[in-house]
Structures are given as C-alpha cells and as structure tokens.
C-alpha cells in the first residue's frame, strides 16, 4: 500500500491527468458535486460521499450520437459516429457506483455487445474510494457491498491527512508504477482503523438492517399481482428523477434529429419506463396508467433483473433516489411494502 499526504494530492492529480482525462467529483459553480474533468483550477470534493448524478454518464451518457444519415435524392448514406476512444481515469468512485458498472456490464456487454459502451468502459481506469462518512440514505450493505472496500483498478482511502493507494488489477498496477514516485510506502493499519469506524457508523444508520435478498417473492406473477402497487404508486409524479439519477437504470430511446433536409443525426438518450409514452404505440399503450409504469420500474429492479442475472438486484443502495425523489418515494419503501404484503 502507498500513501500521499493531502498537501501533495494536487501533484498526484496533475500526474494522473497527464495519463488520461482525469474525472473526479468537482463542485460546479452552483455548488453541485459531479464527476468533471479535473484541472488545476478545480477543487476535487472527495469529502462528498455521493455525487449528485451517478457515474454511469461516463459510460452511458445521457445523450450520445450514433450515426448520421445523408440523403441525396433517393440515395442514402450512413456514417457511424464512432464511440470515443479517449483514455479516462475515473477517480473517487464509491463502492456502490463501482458495483453499478458491473450491473451495467451485464446489460451492455452481453451479446450483442454495445460497442459505444464497451469502448468507453475499456478506455476507463477506475480508482475507487472507500467511504468514511456514509449518509443515512446509504444502504449498499443490503446488497452485500462493502463501502470500505470499493474495488476498482485501484482502491483509495482518504484519512484526515493522507490518501492511501492500493492497486488491484494489472491496469491498476501499471498506473501505479507511473505515479508511485509521488507516493511513499504505508501500513494498512490506518486504513483498517478507518474502515472499522465507518462500519460502526453504518450499523447505526436507519437502513442498517434493511435487506432485499430473500425478502421479496421472486415469482414474477405473484409480485406483479401484489396489492401494493396501486396504493404505493398513488404519490408518484411519474417524473423521471429516480431513473435518471439511478446508477443502474439503463433504458434508452433512439431518436432522429433533422439537421437539415438531407442530413439527419441519430442519437440515443436516457429514457424512463415511468414516462407516459415509453410503451405507447400507434395502436395503444399496454401500460396505460402510472400504476403499471411504476410497477414496471420496481419489478424490473427487484424481480426481473435478478431472475435474469444470477440474483443480482438492479440496485446498489446508493440512496440517490431517496435523496432526490420530489415526493419521497423510493426503492426502500417499495421493497418494504412488498415484503409486508407477502404474508397477506
């Protein structure tokens, strides 16, 4: 394990930014903290547990161009707009967000591979960061995630005075070699101490004992037909906040944009199963009301996805939906309601 004092951290960041586009949580002008390209003027905010948006944007951006059509009379030509091949170093990612990449991989890297996602994923090196000040909305533990050991190509820990650095993968080791000069050897004891404190805090959190696995009937029809949906969805506004801030939601739309009469660009953008037109077809809509749409979102996260992916829920317990929902509806409330209704 290596370490660097916090005073010297900017030197490390500068060195890393030489090796690729360095993305770290930064505060923008309005005070929001999100992953942004670092430069010497920007102050990284590693003290913030969660970025406002999840890190999925880095691999699955909200809007992404796919191709361009050019027409000439009846003739058509297609140019693929190629996925990015820039090298990115993504630093300061929490355990929950790192787990979300694994879940997104199950969608986008499954055959047929999504080349846009894959290109970004392969060109990105992930430097995880252990949590030391979890929030009350955190429940990554519910999904077996250890907030103090986030993984990634490199794992880092921040204490009062230093950043600790541990390479995990080959790519991580190669990166470490390039910046090791800036750091010194360190004992793991400080990190272990911090992890113990964090875990003790986590245990005091309101959601410490919240579990999903084994609590919700994984029988699709049974859960689908549960009585809870109508009542629990009553407060939902059908906005897409939860979907868009969720690190695992991955629905998208493909749309055309007419640049001019003979030039069209096709792009994809995030979409949400909560949107009224998500399943709307010329001849009708199989999910007519918000009850069905609300149900779809949570059925997908809690039942369909795990059934198709070796039991992994499409949730990592980051708690962003708990923080952001305009009406305080969230996956925890739904999961708890389903659990109760099982006995009914």
């Amino acid at each position: 394990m290596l370490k660097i004092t916090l005073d010297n951290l900017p030197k490390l960041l500068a060195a890393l930014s030489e090796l690729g586009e360095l993305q770290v949580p930064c505060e923008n002008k309005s005070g929001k903290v999100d992953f942004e390209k670092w430069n010497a003027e920007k102050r990284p905010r590693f003290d913030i547990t969660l970025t406002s948006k999840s890190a999925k944007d880095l691999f699955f951006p909200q809007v992404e161009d796919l191709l361009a059509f050019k027409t000439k009379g009846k003739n058509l030509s297609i140019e693929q707009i190629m996925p990015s091949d820039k090298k990115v170093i993504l630093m300061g990612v929490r355990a929950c967000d790192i787990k979300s990449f694994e879940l997104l991989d199950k969608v986008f890297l499954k055959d047929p591979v999504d080349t846009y996602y894959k290109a970004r994923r392969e060109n990105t090196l992930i430097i995880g960061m252990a949590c030391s000040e979890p929030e009350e909305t955190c429940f990554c533990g519910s999904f077996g995630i250890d907030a103090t050991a986030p993984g990634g190509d490199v794992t880092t820990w921040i204490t009062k005075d230093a950043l600790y650095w541990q390479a995990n993968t080959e790519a991580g080791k190669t990166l470490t070699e390039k910046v090791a000069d800036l750091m010194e050897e360190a004992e793991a004891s400080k990190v272990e101490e911090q992890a113990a404190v964090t875990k003790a805090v986590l245990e005091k959190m309101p959601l410490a004992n919240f579990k999903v696995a084994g609590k919700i009937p994984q029988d699709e029809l049974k859960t689908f037909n549960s009585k809870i949906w109508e009542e629990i969805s009553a407060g939902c506004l059908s906005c897409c906040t939860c979907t868009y801030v969720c690190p695992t939601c991955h629905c998208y739309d493909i749309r055309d944009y007419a640049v001019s009469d003979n030039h069209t660009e096709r792009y994809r953008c995030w979409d949400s199963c909560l949107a009224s037109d998500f399943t709307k077809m010329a001849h009708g809509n199989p999910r007519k009301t918000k009850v069905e749409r609300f149900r779809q979102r949570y059925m997908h996260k809690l039942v369909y996805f795990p059934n198709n992916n070796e039991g992994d829920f499409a949730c990592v317990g980051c708690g962003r939906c708990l923080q952001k929902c305009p009406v305080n509806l969230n996956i925890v409330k739904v999961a708890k309601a389903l659990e109760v209704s099982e006995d009914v």
Partner: protein
Amino acid sequence: MLKDAAKFEPKIVAFCCNWCSYAGADGAGTARKNYPANVKIIKVPCSCRVNPMFILRAFQRGADGVILCGCHPGDCHYSTGNYYTRRRMALLMSMLNFMGVAEDRFRVEWVSAAEGAKFAEVMNDFVVQITALGENVKLRDLRCKK
C-alpha cells in the same frame, strides 16, 4: 473575416397576420416598394395565432431575426386577438432579455393593409438591424449549422 461579414445575409422570419400585415406586404409589392429577400413571410390567420414557441423555434432552427406583424391594436379582424398578442410578446421579449438572448432580434410591429410603404420600411430597417447584429448563435441549435 471581413469578407465573410460583408457577405452575411441574415435569415428573417416574418409572421404576418392574414388580414392586415400580409395584405400590407401585398401592398408593398403592388406599390413596387422593395424589401429584402431575406424576409420569409409565414402567413397566420391572426397575430394571436403565434405561439411564443413559434418564435423560439424559428430562432432555434436558424433564423437570425424574427418579426411578428399584426393589425394595429383596435383593428383586429377578430376584434381583440392582437391585444392578447401584445401582452404575450411583451412578456416573451422581456424574458429573452432576461436570459440574455436575442431580445433585439425579435420585433413586434403593427402594419395595416393600407400600409404597404410602412411594411417595406419596417422590413428594410429590421434587415439592417439584424445584419448589424450578425449571426444568431445564442438561440440557434448548433446542430443545424452542420
């Protein structure tokens, strides 16, 4: 650069009410009053038909200036349509100003059917104004420049 600036031909969208301003444009033609070909007229049944979004969309899709012409207040073919237009457009113009975009690229003028000369004059003036301002970039969709 200078050469390009000299060549700049603004795209102007003019929404004209069918009863007064469009007839005014006709009048300009009959009276052989010239106004620049930069002005593309879209005929609307009443200036009140123009949703503020039409103006925004025109800018978005590449207009450098947008002008809305209707009957003089009090002379609306439908009695009161242009009174509503006046309120709507005052708010829109103020909001464009507030957002720091294109307020001076948008104008509202009242031109009657008898005012062919005024129509030509207004358009000439507006084209000069927009030409001086140059290309609209703030409200234009960057994509349609490709």
